[in-house]
């Protein structure tokens, strides 16, 4: 297995080259006069600006190959460049935004996977009965709901009506506490950092802020998980070995728990990993609605402002995550399902 992992990791630079070369190839279709727009935030802000000077200064009129080689050279020195849209280096931007996204992902994955599997199993066990129909209708409704609509609805109820779950990552008072020198930042994830600092008040505040976006994400992905689990479970329940298990006179509980569920979860693992990847890449709309600045917002702002270094940097980072998560999932497969051999 170790040689398999090493071989997969050796493949990483090839993936990274492919991703970045593709992006640069796309960017090369834009002229320097389009790219210079990054430096002028809006049409009304072009005042007394010598755009030609900016193009010369930042070498925006270089041929794409030269730009790419310069970028690779900087990358080898650990420099991903300056992000004009987020006012910091790309490395810093990712380092500061990723903990927020990771925190959101970690909190969202648990209810999504557990809730989705649970409901999927229930649905499959009550196949074509009212409970099954109810969960399926719910799943389809939630799945087809646009995320900004659901997000705003959750915000209106959770914050506007109940006042429980405010937007942002922390309340004003907690922000000030976090800024103090006595508060040490370990991970950039406020829930974890506050516990490590033994500040339960800040922990609850951070938790209160994260619940609404997590709930929204969970609702959106529940449906997805539910449907996969349900169909996979139905499939397994019709297998011969389940029939055999039942014929042996095992209780229904044992049949489901010991014989069906484990096998039904294999496709779910695949889906869960792709969901995890989606969440780690940042969820733009939910982050916007709940003012939760993570990677999704960073990427969308950078893309709309044609902030090339930032877009390429995030793509690179995301490619690394993708390769690593896929590798972890493959390894997990071989643990869950003994039939899978890594070679």
């Amino acid at each position, binding site marked *: 297995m170790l040689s398999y992992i090493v071989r997969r990791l050796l493949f990483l630079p090839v993936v990274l080259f492919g991703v970045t070369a593709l992006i640069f190839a796309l960017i090369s279709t834009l002229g320097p006069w389009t790219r210079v727009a990054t430096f002028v935030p809006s049409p009304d802000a072009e*005042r*007394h600006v010598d755009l030609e000077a900016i193009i010369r*200064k930042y070498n925006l009129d270089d041929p794409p190959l030269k730009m790419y080689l310069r970028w690779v050279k900087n990358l080898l020195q650990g420099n991903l460049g300056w992000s004009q849209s987020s006012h910091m280096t790309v490395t810093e931007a990712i380092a500061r935004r990723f903990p927020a996204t990771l925190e959101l992902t970690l909190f969202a994955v648990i209810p999504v996977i*557990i809730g989705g599997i649970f409901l999927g199993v229930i649905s499959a066990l009550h196949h074509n009965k009212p409970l099954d129909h109810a969960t399926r209708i719910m799943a389809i409704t939630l799945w087809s709901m646009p995320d900004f609509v659901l997000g705003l609805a959750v915000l209106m109820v959770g914050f506007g009506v109940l*006042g429980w779950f405010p937007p942002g990552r922390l309340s004003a008072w907690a922000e000030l506490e976090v800024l103090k020198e006595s508060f040490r930042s370990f991970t950039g994830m406020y829930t974890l950092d506050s516990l490590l600092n033994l500040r339960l008040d800040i922990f609850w505040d951070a938790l209160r802020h994260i619940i609404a976006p997590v709930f929204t994400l969970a609702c959106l992905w529940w449906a997805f998980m539910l449907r996969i689990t349900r169909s996979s479970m139905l499939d397994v329940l019709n297998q011969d070995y389940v029939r055999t298990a039942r014929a042996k006179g095992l209780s229904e509980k044992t049949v489901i728990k010991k014989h069906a569920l484990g096998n039904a979860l294999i496709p779910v693992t695949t889906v869960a990993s792709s969901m995890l990847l989606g969440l780690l890449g940042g969820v733009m709309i939910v982050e*916007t609605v709940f003012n939760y600045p993570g990677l999704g917002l960073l990427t969308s702002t950078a893309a709309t402002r044609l902030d090339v270094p930032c877009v390429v940097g995030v793509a690179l980072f995301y490619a690394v995550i993708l390769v690593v998560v896929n590798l972890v999932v493959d390894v997990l497969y071989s643990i869950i399902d003994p039939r899978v051999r890594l070679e």
Partner: protein
Amino acid sequence: MKGKVWLWLVIALVVIGAGVLIWTGQAPKQETGGAQGVKFDPNIFVFVGSGDAETLDPSKAYDTASSEIIFQYYENLLAYKEGSLDEFVPMLATEVPSVANGLISADGKTYTFPIRKGVKFHNGAELTPEDVEYSFERNILADPTGGPMWMLIEPLFGVATIKDLACQIAGVDSFDQVNEAALRATGQRVMDAIEVDGDNVVFHLSTPYPPFLSILARNSSWSCILNKEWMIANGAWDGKAETWTKWHDLPTEEQALFEKAMGTGPYKQIEWDRSNSRHTMEAHADYWRGPAAIKTVIVNNGVTEFNTRKLMLQKGEADAIYVPVENSPQLEGMEGVTLIRNLPRLNNVCAIFNQEINAVDNEFVGSGKLDGNGIPPHFFSDINIRKAFCYAFDYDSFIEQVVLGEASVPYGVIPMGLSDFFDTNGPRYSYDLEKAEEYFKKAFGGEVWEKGFKLTLVWNIPNTTRKTACEILEHGIESINPKFQVEVQGMEWATMLPRRREGRLPMVFIGWLADYADPHNFVYPYVHSKGDFMAFTGELGRKFAAAEFDELVNAGINESDQAKRIAIYSEIQKKTIELAPHLMLYDAYDRRAHRDWVKGFVFDPICPANYDFYALSKSLD
């Protein structure tokens, strides 16, 4: 076994999740206080906006979001007198210079400012005249591309950039050719223009410049006062004539004040959290006018979604928020919230007529000929076409329905906020299709009316206000003659920029927000042949401006007598209606929304910040 582990994990997590939900659901009840169960803390002020500062360096900052923050940290020599745009009160100077008190020389070229004593910077250092001298010299020599420093370079040296000054001194055309000696001479020239004389700082202008005090006054981030010693310690220009090029035109992020601040203002910087677009500031305890009432201010510029901002205001999480014009009805009548509308700011919006369109492979001008399927490149150089377009725009409907009454019909290129400088009984355009028809019939000897035309109007995504303006104009024009075809197309800014620059857009929709409160700041960009807006009108447009307006604009800026200036600007204003160099769409108004408990708000039309936090306090009565 595996199944069991899964199940236990599921149960444990569900229980924890439920516990957390219940617990956190109860938490806010303990924390809330004040009226209607919303949070009230008199010591913290939270402003929630959208769109963060580009930089905190005063030599580079040229956007409202940046100036808004700089405004709280730094101060200027003077401030506008409350409620006035042409009278001043002293700030870091102790007197306002005038010819009468002898602080402005009789020829209008020397300004003397006695510097206030006992003023403390945020680090405890005391303000000296040397700090003032250094602040201006440093910013002028830094002169980054796209920055605001031209405003000071123009009155002091009569050129637009410091590179131009160096070229002028060296007698060469390009900055690359300027030799070492000339570079040093340039540094020396700047240092000679601003000098310390005892307790005073003296400015030597190259020509009399009536708006000079406006350019120095509070709200002008480019003229704020820095701390020389701290600046040098933090890697800024060392104050020597021969070294300035090392700090000249640095990339934004390499400037010393990009993310830091050290001023004398009422608030000192605690942090700029760039990844959350949030500024945290604390009242300056040794502030010379006495410490601010509100101890801590948080400016959160990262909330782009209006509904989120609205809820934060409603629940008291925010004390004030930024409200775009189209959203203000949503706050009307909200409990505990004050909405103030129709505040006259110095801002107007126009559609520039490109008098010489670059018609080569141009998708916006149809055939590029006057054959009914396009427009010729010089279409808008015919005054009849321009006037016809001006009469074909339904100003009232636009103002009522699109900007919801928060605007007025322009009297020309100078906006309502500066109405002291022109005649408010003067002519204006109105929506009059008969007149439009009359002018269309005269245009190109009747050919336009006979053959018709086709053109495309371009607006920048996501500015839907401009999109609607294009559509209203389209409707007006197309209803005059079925042969007139107008198309409306949206475009991302990055796609639009090269086309606008190459002169391909038949009309350019754009707005101007004042740098300082003087009509010169409007007439120059709008109608001077070298102004920013005339740059979009082609060679023919610039020649037209040079023939019709340059002399008047120059007369206005070189005249010191206020009455004569008013006469000149009234004439320019009237002439911009008569000759219609641009279609002036509307003079924009502003609005504010804050909790009722915010006291002390005074609107200042030229202030870049939504709020002067120093003037505010919070109280529940």
